[in-house]
């Protein structure tokens, strides 16, 4: 029987050579580059007197360090500036298919602009020196986050050294209740399988609930595959995938489009394909999720409570929960709905696309930020997302509610720029990591969907967004 999974097909299509021990060279179609993980790679290339193999595969942008406050037209921090300038110099010296520098109207978070520009296309191998490269798997891409040595390796050889991962399928059956979003789906999955649950596996997300998600929603799910331990997360091609690319600038046109579509339609797992592991969730039972600890697997739903560390049988987990509660300043048994927040962050490559902003705006419309919430940042994922949101008037809804409407960038997802939490501050965040210090030293992060973040901004504490949604939604 020769039935293949989607992952098998993508792997086979890019396999250049394989050693007897399974070590393989995989051909790379698209290399996304940003300022933080590339300088040492370009330096290595230069020191060895090498050149990029195929500059036409490179798409670059500055996103991690750039300020998102529209009044800041320059990067004030000299070290951040040096990194962005170094990227400029490297791209100028070596070349690229596209470069979206700071201030370019299409600049944005690398995982938002890749698909948006059509630089990411179905069936491609996509790499980037960033673990959330798994995002691009939403388009049936084999997308890997890589380290800086691998960035250099791909620059020099157009290949990545890999061993094939195992196949895992996460099926979400049924349909999602109102008020439950892609973010809740992936948080619930991580809560179920744990942050190491997908280690060594390539995950295909499947099932009715995944199919019914928009491309934006699928990106949110694949984005956090890495938080489930899997370097790769994917969704098979369907009509939605193809529609998404029809008018994208870098997508093929005319006859080539037709030819591409014929191939892309094959990018689904064969019905008899075998998976090494399968996990099944029922969408109908899902509720809005909120993390309570310092790892994305420390998650419960809005009707839940902060757990008691003593309830964990595994001593390593119990110890981790104790540390997490101490860091987060939470008492066991506290209802999630009673946790008050100081800041709210709506943004990041997980949740900064137009659909995310629409979901947040639907909750905010006509309401105001709670007085105890010091600051609400809304940071669109790209210049184009920002433009579209403004055309739809979403920015006005946010500004009238007392939120700050920012320029695109990674912002408070990792707080490499000026956007950050102060020690002890608590944040409802739509980003992907609630690690200690991630949003600023001593800052406390709770991961939620954009609608739940918006609801917390209005209420001043976590609240069930299903109670705030207009009845028609």
């Amino acid at each position, binding site marked *: 029987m020769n039935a293949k999974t989607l992952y098998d097909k993508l792997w086979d299509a*890019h396999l*250049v*050579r394989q*050693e007897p*021990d399974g*070590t393989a*060279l995989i*051909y790379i*179609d698209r290399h996304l580059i940003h300022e*933080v*993980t590339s*300088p*040492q790679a370009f*330096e290595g290339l230069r020191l*060895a007197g*090498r050149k990029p193999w*195929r500059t*036409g595969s490179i798409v670059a942008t500055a996103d*991690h360090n750039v300020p998102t406050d529209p009044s800041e037209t320059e990067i004030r*921090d000299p*070290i951040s500036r040096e*990194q962005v300038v170094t990227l400029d110099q490297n791209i100028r010296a070596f070349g690229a*298919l596209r470069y979206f520098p700071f201030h370019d109207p299409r600049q944005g978070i690398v995982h938002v602009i890749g698909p948006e520009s059509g630089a990411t*296309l179905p*069936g491609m191998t996509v790499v980037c020196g*960033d*673990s959330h490269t798994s995002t691009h798997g939403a388009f049936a891409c084999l997308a890997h*986050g*890589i*380290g*800086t*040595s*691998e960035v*250099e390796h791909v620059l*020099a*050889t157009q290949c990545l050294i890999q061993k094939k991962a195992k196949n895992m399928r996460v099926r979400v059956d049924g349909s999602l209740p109102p008020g439950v979003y892609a973010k809740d789906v992936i948080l619930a999955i991580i809560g179920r399988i744990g*942050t*190491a649950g997908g*280690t*060594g596996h390539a995950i295909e997300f499947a099932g009715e609930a995944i199919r019914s998600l928009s491309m934006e929603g699928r990106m949110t799910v694949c984005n956090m595959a*890495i938080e489930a*331990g899997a*370097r790769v997360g994917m969704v098979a091609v369907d009509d939605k995938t193809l529609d998404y690319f029809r008018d994208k600038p*870098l997508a093929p046109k005319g006859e*080539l*489009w037709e*030819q*591409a579509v014929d191939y892309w339609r094959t990018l689904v797992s064969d019905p008899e394909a075998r998976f090494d592991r399968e996990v099944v969730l029922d969408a109908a039972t899902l509720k809005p999720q909120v993390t309570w600890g310092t790892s994305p697997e420390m998650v419960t739903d809005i009707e839940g409570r902060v757990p008691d560390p003593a309830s964990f049988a595994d001593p*390593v987990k119990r*110890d*981790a929960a104790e540390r997490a509660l101490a860091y987060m300043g939470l008492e066991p048994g506290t209802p999630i709905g009673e946790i008050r927040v100081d800041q709210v962050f709506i943004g990041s490559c997980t949740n900064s696309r137009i659909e995310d902003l629409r979901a947040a705006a639907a909750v905010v419309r006509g309401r105001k930020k709670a007085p105890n919430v010091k600051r609400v940042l809304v940071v669109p994922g790209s210049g184009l997302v920002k433009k579209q949101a403004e055309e739809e008037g979403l920015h006005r809804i946010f500004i009238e509610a007392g939120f700050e409407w920012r320029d695109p960038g990674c912002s408070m997802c*990792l*707080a*490499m720029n000026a956007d950050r939490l102060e020690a002890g501050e608590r944040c409802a965040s739509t980003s992907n*990591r609630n*690690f*200690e*210090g*991630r949003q600023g*030293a001593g800052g406390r992060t709770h991961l939620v969907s954009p609608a739940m973040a918006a609801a917390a901004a209005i209420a001043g504490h976590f609240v069930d967004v299903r109670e705030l949604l207009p009845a028609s939604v």
Partner: protein
Amino acid sequence: MEKFIRLDALVAPLDRANVDTDAIIPKQFLKSIHRSGFGPYLFDAWRYLDRGEPGMDCSKRPKNPDFVLNQPRYQGAQILLVRENFGCGSSREHAPWALLDYGFRALIGPSFADIFYNNCFKNGLLPIVLPAEEVDRLFGECEAAPGYRLAIDLPSQSITTPEDRVISFEIDSFRKECLLNGWDDIGLTLRHADEIRRFEEAYRARHPYYFVEESAA
């Protein structure tokens, strides 16, 4: 890359699960455009009581006496014992750079996050996976005996404890060869440059839509 063949060294135990790369090297240090100099900032938020910024003179900063690496008995350790899912989170290679720069050459734990695991090998840092019970036992022995050392022998894939217990470990043969010889991946791959070029041509003919702009240019 520096070769790794044998290492007989002091061991330090880091008894926490899911240690992420943000904890190993916090983001403010990622602004550097160099590969070295991260050692003083390794585990910065746990190691020091003040907030670290790039360029600080760490010798003058207040140290957290409770953090394991600050204890006198673990000074000079080159082997770090860790718990499950070590190195999860961001792909930053600054994490293995910081561990190496600090002086670690090997890590021993029950599991490592994929990207981190891979990044270690690219830099001559050896991550060894052992069964959880074995790691537990090593934690116990290490904490009970000041000056606890382990001898790692990569050619025979074994670790010897002070009581001469020999523990064998698995490692992928390609990665082992690279470490033993200090080989540079890029050089190795470029030996197959002709094969890559042939593949690329055939691939381009099959999937011209992935090369549209380049053909037009």
